[in-house]
């Protein structure tokens, strides 16, 4: 399979996840706002986070859709997914009260399922970064320009 195809598929999966998650939150905004306010770790910054999360997810999705900004989108996706996965890990380990600020069918998953789901998408975005590595693109470009494999 071509590298660009793999990156396309990973980007599509990430875009689907982020757009779905962001819209689910915005469509049920009052519920999302309430649940975020209940979270023991981010109560004080919930006013900011309640807008930052869905808008951030939409911004990352836009970055992934546009090919020119896809690399940045993959890095941002990895950062976001790492943040979400880390948050669930901390919540499961250190908090007795676990309100979920997730939207749509994601809220129907158990905490363990949700953790594994996030972990899979974190690894997917990491794979996207690795496959989309600009160093390998440079080598390919050199091969095309010189017609032979560069000495590395």
């Amino acid at each position, binding site marked *: 399979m071509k590298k*660009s195809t793999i990156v*396309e*598929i990973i*980007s*599509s*999966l990430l*875009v*689907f*996840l*982020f*757009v*779905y998650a962001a*819209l*689910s939150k915005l*469509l*049920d905004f009052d*519920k999302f706002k*309430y*649940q975020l306010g*209940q979270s023991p770790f981010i109560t004080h910054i919930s006013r900011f986070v309640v807008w930052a999360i869905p808008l951030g997810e939409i911004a990352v*999705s836009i970055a*992934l*859709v*546009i*090919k020119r900004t896809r690399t940045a989108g993959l890095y941002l996706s990895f950062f976001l997914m790492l943040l979400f996965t880390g948050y669930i890990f901390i919540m499961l380990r250190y908090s*007795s*009260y*676990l*309100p*979920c600020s*997730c*939207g*749509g*069918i994601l*809220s*129907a*998953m*158990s*905490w363990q399922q949700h953790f594994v789901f996030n972990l899979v998408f974190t690894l997917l975005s990491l794979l996207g970064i690795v496959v989309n590595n600009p160093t390998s693109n440079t080598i390919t470009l050199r091969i095309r320009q010189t017609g032979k494999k560069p000495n590395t």
Partner: protein
Amino acid sequence: MKRSVSLVAIAAVFAIGAAFTTKRQTGMWNVDHPEVNSPGIYYATFDQIKASFCPGVNNLECAYFISDRNVIVKKP
């Protein structure tokens, strides 16, 4: 290049559709579920609670969505 943009864009369109569809499904859970409308107090431990919804003022009545077993709990 055109094809790659459209594949990711199609994923975004599907996601929009899925979000609106599941919104309709999950938006009704606290109204239609028989557990919520039946009288009584239902108990669950805090680590089982994943999502909660408290309509009205002062959080007098809350519906809780429970992990694993998908049970909704009403608390007076």
